[in-house]
């Protein structure tokens, strides 16, 4: 295992300290339990947004803390959901006078821990509404599984609901935005290589030199199928097909296309994929209104990408375009 770390046990805590060194103007951190909050939290008169999950998906979630996005982010161990006390403390720390929305990715661990934290916070009289994100179409038969995983839509939901909160939306309005983004989004990812969880020390899975994993999860969970490597355009089509047909997106829909790198993917490859996304969407009669491209929800050093499509309306576009100032996403300020 080759990683720029000191001790495996200190990875998350040292990374948070490094975040503070880099961005003392934007965030505050807490180390026990571990969370990142917006500088100056709590913001009164504003619904607070809290998310969290295992570490290793950077910039998610700590990188999305700031004006117009999250108020707090709980960093679990690498690929391990944060604990209830962690989420509870973070929730208390950022709660203003208008309640807290929990944005939870649909993994058993995340759901259970956020549930327990919400109970604790509600016990303290803090109003909490939790919304679960489950946009990953790679998971089929969701009746027979823990349901679809939450992936790329999380970033979009945090941005859009965060903008609503910033402009004074109510608790249920903000929660509804998260729900709507989730309902209107679909994602699918693939991997060229595995990642190595530091505490484990060896790659989570093995892929032959000519193989790729389609439908990979962001923790290296195996995907839908393992197939031979193909040209980028064909791979993009493979990901887009189930994404498009699931919602389904139909001709005339306005969309945001989010091409996400898994961590170890050179930007040049993401752009090659975006080229095909643009062509394929226009073949399908969709209108590409907004794009997001880069590594925003990662799996450590995994090489691969995911594609998320979000069906937009004017209101979502307005909220998407609203100013945001976080370490991971920034515009308009």
């Amino acid at each position, binding site marked *: 295992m080759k990683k720029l770390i000191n001790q495996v046990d200190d990875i998350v805590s040292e990374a948070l300290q490094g975040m503070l060194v880099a961005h003392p103007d934007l965030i505050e951190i807490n180390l026990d*339990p571990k969370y990142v909050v917006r500088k100056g939290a709590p913001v009164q008169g504003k619904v607070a947004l809290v998310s969290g999950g*295992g570490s290793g998906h950077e910039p998610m979630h700590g990188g999305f803390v700031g004006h117009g996005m999250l108020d707090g982010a709980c960093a*679990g*161990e*690498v*690929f*391990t*959901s*944060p*604990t*209830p*006390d*962690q989420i509870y403390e973070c929730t208390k720390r950022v709660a203003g006078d208008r309640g807290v929305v929990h944005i939870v990715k649909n*993994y*058993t*661990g995340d759901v*259970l*821990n956020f*549930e*327990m934290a919400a109970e604790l916070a509600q016990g303290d009289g803090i109003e909490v509404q939790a919304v679960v994100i489950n946009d990953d179409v*790679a*998971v*089929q*038969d969701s009746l*027979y*599984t*823990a349901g679809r*995983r939450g992936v790329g839509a999380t970033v979009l939901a945090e941005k859009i609901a965060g903008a609503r909160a910033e402009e004074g939306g109510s608790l249920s309005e903000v929660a509804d935005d998260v729900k709507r983004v989730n309902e209107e989004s679909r994602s699918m990812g693939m991997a060229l290589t595995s990642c190595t*969880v530091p*505490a*484990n020390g060896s790659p*989570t*899975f093995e892929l032959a030199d000519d193989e790729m994993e389609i439908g990979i*999860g962001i*923790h*290296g*969970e*195996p995907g839908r199928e393992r197939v031979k490597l193909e040209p980028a355009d064909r791979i993009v089509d493979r990901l887009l097909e189930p994404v498009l047909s699931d919602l389904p997106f139909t001709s005339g829909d306005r969309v945001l296309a989010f091409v996400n790198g898994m961590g170890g993917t050179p930007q040049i490859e993401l752009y090659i994929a975006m080229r095909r996304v643009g062509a394929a969407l226009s073949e399908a009669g969709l209108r590409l209104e907004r794009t997001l491209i880069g590594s925003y929800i990662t799996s450590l050093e995994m090489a691969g990408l995911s594609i998320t499509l979000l069906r937009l309306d004017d209101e979502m576009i307005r909220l998407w375009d609203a100013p945001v100032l976080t370490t991971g996403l920034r515009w308009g300020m």
Partner: protein
Amino acid sequence: MGDVILDARGARAWLELLAGTLSEHAGELTALDAAIGDADHGSNMDRGFKAVRQKALNQDGADPAAIFKQTGMALISTVGGAGGPLYGTFFLRMAQAAPGKEQLTVEDLRDMLKAGLEGVVQRGKASPGEKTMVDALGPAVEALDAAIAAGKGGEEALQEAADAAERGARATIPMVARKGRASYLGERSAGHQDPGATSSALLVRTLAQSVG
């Protein structure tokens, strides 16, 4: 009612043994999790039980239920993932089943384990056969019940529970997962032993080794 088979000292000894055993098996549990999950179950449990050692085991005088409660709290606040809330709930519910009792009989332990199992099922909504820790804990509780009903002694009854838990864990191998992260694999989850069921079997085995 039967003989006393576990007191506070025994409870501590069990949890010490379990902590050591999980530490020893961490690599193995993580490898099982790598095959059908996200490669962290071993390190999660190890981290959790290191915290249990620090927070729950180095205080004197508590009764077993109090120790289990501290254990549950420690697990909940350090493990994370699915394992944290599930095992945490397991120990919290164990504690609630015999609060304040300083000397536990095998029937007490049976009631506690049953309550713990119910807590896991309530939180995780898993049914038997879905390839989770329930598939080890469930058979263990049933075997314990049966052994007690058959009039076996506490130690023997718990050995049988441990055997049943291990058989249950092995029986997860052909199962297709329907809960937790492994369920995303669908049919491809078959052929691998469930990491949570495996750690549960270690839990029951070490308990059997600690009573008497």
